[in-house]
């Protein structure tokens, strides 16, 4: 944008009001007089605006709205913004049955899915069983898995945020209560994974914001 041309064109009222608020900070009469002198064509608008600005600035304290009232207003305004085309509706992502299950349904083996996503089979299995804390999973990994599965990244993200799952096809003795391993951070799982090549490990740790 050419700055000289930009500042030389006639000032629209909206821009004048923006700058007035930005420059003045608080409404006051001397500033109003100065800005009316600068933009006499907007004398009425600046004056009216300043009065209302002062009114807003000195608005009396009123009882705060309840949380329920605020939430209702938020929902109404979000719906309004969607209706007027400023926000777009986001369909709730369909729930995934499991990463490996979806892959197999598409004819992909676990090994192929791991290869396509730059993960090892053990690491993919840990992700599938949700044994890795979601907050530590790099978005890039979520995106890669989603791309390989042909799913929305949001659906994969939603799946990964669920609770840990037992391994499939594991049988337990009747007198043993099944236990689940604790979740771990993505970087920790990468460091512990002997099946990853050094290059894969370095890349994944880099995605997780850690040194290899």
């Amino acid at each position, binding site marked *: *944008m050419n*700055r000289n041309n*930009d*500042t030389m064109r006639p*000032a629209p009222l*909206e*821009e004048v009001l*923006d*700058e007035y*608020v*930005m420059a003045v*900070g608080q409404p006051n*009469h*001397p500033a109003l*007089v100065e800005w009316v002198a600068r933009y*006499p064509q907007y004398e009425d608008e600046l*004056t*009216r*605006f*300043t*009065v*209302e*600005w*002062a*009114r*807003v*600035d*000195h*608005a*009396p*304290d*009123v009882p*705060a*709205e309840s949380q329920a009232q*605020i939430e209702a*207003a*938020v929902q109404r*305004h*979000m719906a*309004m*913004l969607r209706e*007027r085309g*400023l*926000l*777009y509706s*986001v369909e709730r*992502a369909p729930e995934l049955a499991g990463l490996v299950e979806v892959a197999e349904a598409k004819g992909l083996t676990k090994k192929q899915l791991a290869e396509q996503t730059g993960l090892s089979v053990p690491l993919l299995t840990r992700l599938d069983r949700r044994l890795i804390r*979601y*907050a530590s*999973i*790099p*978005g*890039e990994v*979520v*995106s890669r898995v989603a791309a390989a599965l042909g799913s929305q*990244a*949001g659906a994969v*993200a939603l799946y990964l*945020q669920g609770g840990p799952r037992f391994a499939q096809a594991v049988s337990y003795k009747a007198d043993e209560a099944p236990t689940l391993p604790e979740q771990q951070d993505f970087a920790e799982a990468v460091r512990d994974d002997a099946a990853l090549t050094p290059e894969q490990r370095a890349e994944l740790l880099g995605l997780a*914001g850690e040194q290899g």
Partner: protein
Amino acid sequence: VQHDTEQATQLAPLTHVARSTGQVYKREPEVERQIHDAISLPPSQLAGRAAAREDQPGYLSAEALAYLIRHFRREGDERTVNDLSGALVRRCESYVARKLYHVGTALLEECRDQVVFRLFERLLDFESDRGDFLQVRFWAFLNRLVADVVSAYAGLRDQIASSVSPAWVHGGELSEGEREEGVGYVPEPVSGDKVDTALLVQEALAMLEEPHRMVFVLRHYQGWPVESKHPGEPTISGYFGVTSRTVRNWLTTAEKRLAEWREERI
């Protein structure tokens, strides 16, 4: 989803040039730090940050949220745009409602809708740099929007007020008959009993009716003259379209009520 590190370190520059200074708008360093910290977070973590209160760790300012909403719109990540927009709207709701309270229940909802709509219209305008202001001084901009909306509805507000209160309350001049009957007449100020404006608080101002409250604010907080010999200088009497005597009467009423309030408090 997480975005690559290079994108995260290079924030989209502001381009809006202030006419008065010739300088490009500039974000606060703290705002830029918050954006850098947040931009690569997984969606769930980012939504958590957006919902954090100011006294909680990882808090994101409204200016940082404004940037992030634009960023994720550019990235096509509408889910995150929705999450962050919801958080931003939630932060604005009670503030806007409080600032608009005086418009009255008949107009409150409509004015609130207008403010939120115009806020997002500006925030998500990619055709110009009109949205830069929001990344620099978000709450000043919101105040400016509220004032603008109130200004647009002022006529309607006053019309509604005049239908439910006598003219001397809403700001009209007294008729000759009303003057004779003493309606709204307030005696000249009692000398030596001037209200100490420094002690006045919101609570005191809140109990004043319009236009007394506004006239008092303009005179004592904003330094407006009642009248002026300089043509073109904004004055209280000029603004309300009444004589300077009426303005003084209103001021006297306001001061008297504030003095009574102070005495009751003591």
